[in-house]
């Protein structure tokens, strides 16, 4: 039942995107007909970005597909649930960063891990890594925003995410007592 619902939601989202695409294309055509002098800039910019994305996205998708099939979720839960200390933190970061699916896939896993007794801080780190330090994302960032930007944002994010894990764990444990 739930799966069917989710599938339906996905379909709705897909058609919404298509409708939005149609509307924005129509707006683009009208705007460019009214302002013909903008045609070159707009089409050339759009085309350059499209070409650049098509050079990189298929490869990124292939990497994600390979991971989805060769590294099953069960394996991830098994490794994360049984590690602690610095090793636990590193593993949470690393596993979160693997090129796996969207964030909502990670919530049930996080919930299962919590029930198994994994540390709250590690779960937060795992979720945050899953959300924003994923390898495919870093590759796109490297491509479009450059190495400095990517490396700096990555290291700051890792630092702050670890701190956030500790803070949330403190608050959760404190409010329980």
């Amino acid at each position, binding site marked *: 039942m739930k799966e069917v619902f989710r599938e339906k939601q996905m379909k709705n989202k897909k058609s919404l995107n298509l409708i939005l695409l149609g509307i924005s294309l129509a707006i683009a055509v009208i705007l460019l007909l009214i302002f013909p002098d903008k045609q070159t800039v707009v089409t*050339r*910019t759009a085309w350059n970005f499209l070409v650049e994305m098509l050079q990189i996205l298929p490869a990124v998708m292939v*990497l994600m597909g390979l991971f989805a099939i060769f590294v099953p979720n069960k394996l991830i839960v098994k490794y994360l649930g049984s590690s602690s200390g610095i090793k636990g933190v590193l593993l949470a970061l690393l596993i979160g960063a693997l090129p796996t699916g969207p964030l909502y896939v990670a919530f049930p896993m*996080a919930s299962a891990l919590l029930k198994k007794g994994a540390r709250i801080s590690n779960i937060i780190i795992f979720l945050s890594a899953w959300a*924003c330090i994923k390898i495919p994302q870093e590759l796109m960032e490297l491509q479009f925003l450059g190495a400095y930007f990517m490396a700096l944002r990555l290291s700051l994010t890792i630092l702050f995410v670890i701190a956030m894990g500790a803070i949330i764990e403190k608050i959760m444990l404190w409010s329980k007592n």
Partner: protein
Amino acid sequence: MHIYASAQYGGYVVSTTTVFINILALVALFIAFIKDRKKTKQSLIIALKSFIKILPALLLVIVFIGLFMGFVPRDQISRIIGNQAGFWGIFIIALFGAISHIPSLISFPLGASLIESGASLTAVAAFITTLTMIGIITLPVEIKELGKKMALLRNGLSFLIAITIAFIMGAIL
């Protein structure tokens, strides 16, 4: 803006990153193929499906980038989210990143186009960080699985962190 050479106008610059990622994917594919043909085929089907799934959003962002660069004047952008922009400019774009539901892979070219059209690094860092870390759309699922307190704490603190990271980056770069 030399670091953004890969997003330059005119001529197709195939960057080293592009070459690196494609070789990486090919090598991984080759190894997977030797290990297990059937699983590799399944992986490719998943890859193709997710590519088709992201395509409408990708084209949407491309059209948006084109119109944006063509029609929104540079000085307007830099006034709101450029180097002269104050805290509130950053706050607004961070909020925008938190509520919008753009596939994170596509947020990077979007960020590059924003920088090219006058936005500051701080603004783009804030936008990308909130966009990836915070999920308003997925919040109900997160609350259901992890509880209200933890979900709200994670999203709320992520917002503060994103803005802090952005300002540190602006100060360093």
